[in-house]
């Protein structure tokens, strides 16, 4: 006599048939079915492809199909199951949901690899420490900004102080100072910089002469182009252009070198040896640039005047000799000295910015990049500010 199957079995058989029909057509996608085993118990069988490249069913969808009144679920997998980490992520979420629903889940039917990886991931040895983003009001941020400015000022003052003490020690012969480094940097920021300084200064001379010629020709005073170029090169452009070139070339290099040393803990290694990084690393760089920038400035002045003479000779038919005599007449020694003094000051601020930013760099690749950027920006800003101040002082 046929025994009538219980109601729960009938419903699940239908579901089972439906899902197997449904999924037989799509073999490469993730499929699953619920197989009832006993009242309140069921098996979730996974098959097909549970990989990142296949479409994975939504959790809600599966929970929607979950047989009612279930308190024990066994998850099994067909032998042909194809899986990668996507299955694990899915199961991880699935188990979280089941835990919330207080549904007991048995994972022993899954491949061993899946089981052990799931255990490993859910062992959760570390405490979730994710940083909270502290929301601050505008006033608080403003206050913090002001405090930061003070802290920054203190840093700058300390760095300046360290440089001064290191200098004093150096002159008393008590500082570690590598003369090899010093000569290397002399060459690096002197002779090696000549090509770029030549190019820029000649072009600046040409531009000045060209702009001046257009105006002066109106008055028939072409010869004064020589004065214009000579004065502006000597007073401003020679020092300024060589300063800006060296800020981009050498200041940035200093910041990058010292920043990378900071990342590699080389600076710490010096400190623990009792060697001040300021006297050992900063002073050679600084002194080299301070020695070389005035020389570069004189060189830039000369080449700028030469550049101007190109225009004077070729475009305005001023004889070369006359051009130079006129240039010489237009200049006083004191004006040349002004430019040299300025470039010395620029040497200080460029190497100061580069070394300061490098030594205060963070310990990552991006931090070194930021330090380099700030070094150049700081150097150029300081160049312009100090120029303005000196112009006022010299005109008194």
């Amino acid at each position, binding site marked *: 006599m046929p025994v009538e199957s219980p109601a729960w079995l009938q419903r699940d058989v239908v579901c089972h048939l439906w899902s197997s029909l449904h999924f037989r057509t799509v073999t490469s996608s993730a499929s699953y079915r619920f197989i009832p085993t006993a009242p309140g118990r069921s098996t979730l069988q996974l098959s097909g492809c549970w990989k*990142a490249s296949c479409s994975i069913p939504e959790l809600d969808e599966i929970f929607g199909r979950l047989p009612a009144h279930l308190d024990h679920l066994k998850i099994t997998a067909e032998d042909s199951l194809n899986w990668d*980490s996507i299955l694990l992520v899915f199961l991880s979420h699935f188990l979280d949901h089941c835990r919330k629903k207080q549904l007991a889940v048995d994972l022993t039917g899954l491949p*061993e690899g899946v089981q*052990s990886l799931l255990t490993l991931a859910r062992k*959760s040895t*570390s405490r*979730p420490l*994710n940083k909270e983003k502290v929301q601050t009001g505008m006033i608080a941020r403003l206050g913090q900004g002001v405090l930061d400015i003070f802290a920054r000022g203190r840093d700058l003052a300390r760095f300046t102080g360290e440089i001064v003490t290191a200098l004093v020690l150096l002159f008393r012969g008590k500082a570690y100072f590598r003369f090899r480094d010093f000569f290397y940097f002399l060459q690096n920021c002197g002779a090696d910089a000549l090509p770029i300084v030549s190019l820029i200064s000649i072009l600046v001379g040409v531009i000045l002469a060209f702009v001046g010629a257009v105006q002066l020709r109106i008055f028939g005073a072409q010869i004064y182009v020589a004065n214009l170029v000579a004065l502006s090169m000597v007073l401003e452009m020679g020092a300024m252009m060589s300063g800006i070139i060296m800020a981009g070339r050498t200041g940035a290099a200093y910041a990058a070198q010292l920043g990378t040393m900071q990342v590699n803990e080389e600076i710490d290694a010096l400190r623990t040896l009792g060697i001040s990084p300021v006297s050992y690393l900063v002073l050679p760089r600084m002194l080299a640039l301070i020695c070389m920038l005035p020389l570069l400035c004189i060189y830039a002045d000369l080449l700028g005047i030469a550049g101007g003479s190109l225009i004077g000779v070729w475009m305005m038919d001023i004889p070369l000799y006359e051009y130079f005599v006129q240039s010489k007449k237009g200049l006083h020694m004191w004006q040349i000295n002004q430019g040299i003094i300025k470039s010395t000051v620029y040497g200080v601020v460029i190497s100061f910015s580069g070394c300061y930013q490098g030594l205060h760099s963070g310990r990552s690749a991006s931090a070194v990049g930021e330090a380099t950027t700030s070094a150049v920006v700081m150097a150029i800003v300081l160049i312009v500010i100090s120029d303005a101040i000196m112009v006022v002082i010299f005109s008194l």
Partner: protein
Amino acid sequence: MRAIQPLSVIDLTMAYDDFILQQNISFTVERGDIFIIMGGSGCGKSTLLRHLIGLKPPQKGKIMYADFDFWQADAAEREKILQRSGILYQSGALWSSMTLAENVALPLQRYTVLHPPVVRELVEFKLSLVGLNGFSEYYPSELSGGMRKRAALARAIALDPELLFFDEPSAGLDPVTSRHLDELILELRDSLGATVIMVTHELDSIYSIGTNSVFLDREAKTMLAVGNPKTMAQETENPVVIDFLTRGTGKRPR
């Protein structure tokens, strides 16, 4: 899908310009092996690894992934092989300007077309596999050395690789942490079904997880022994290998 195991190296010569580092290197890695590349400092272990992962072309010889000559293939084919490999660099080599989550996500973004939320979940999962759940928003510089190693491991396994390369995974870690790392490597090898190729000179790791190995020597400029490290320690007659495997005491392990 082409199976890329086993990896075999045939008559490899490694050199920096005229300076020959190692020659006549030949060995085969079987599927599921934890293959150890060992030898004293400066013998070219890391250089061998760089040859295997496509960072340095060999001067002579072949590196075969299955029946596939790695260095004869074009760049695209090589990339396909590397896509199935995970590499853990000696110092972690996490990108310092990116958070852990971004570090682990990059291989996934590069080689899969998954939606960002799925990538995020996978990343979280990989980080929890190495015990770093909750640290996804941290930058590498904010972590300890061991955590950085584990994060780098999470990045190496991001794509469920079939081949895992490790360059001195336990360098700079304390004994307990490095044992945990060994266990983790073993666990991942078993569960992912991956093959591990590992450069190391940690004897503990060599004995506890190595199933096959090659011993390189700087003086001889070639390999001195191949085989399971435990058997190697028992059977080798070469004094250099004995010295290395017994930490200079000459007492063979039981």
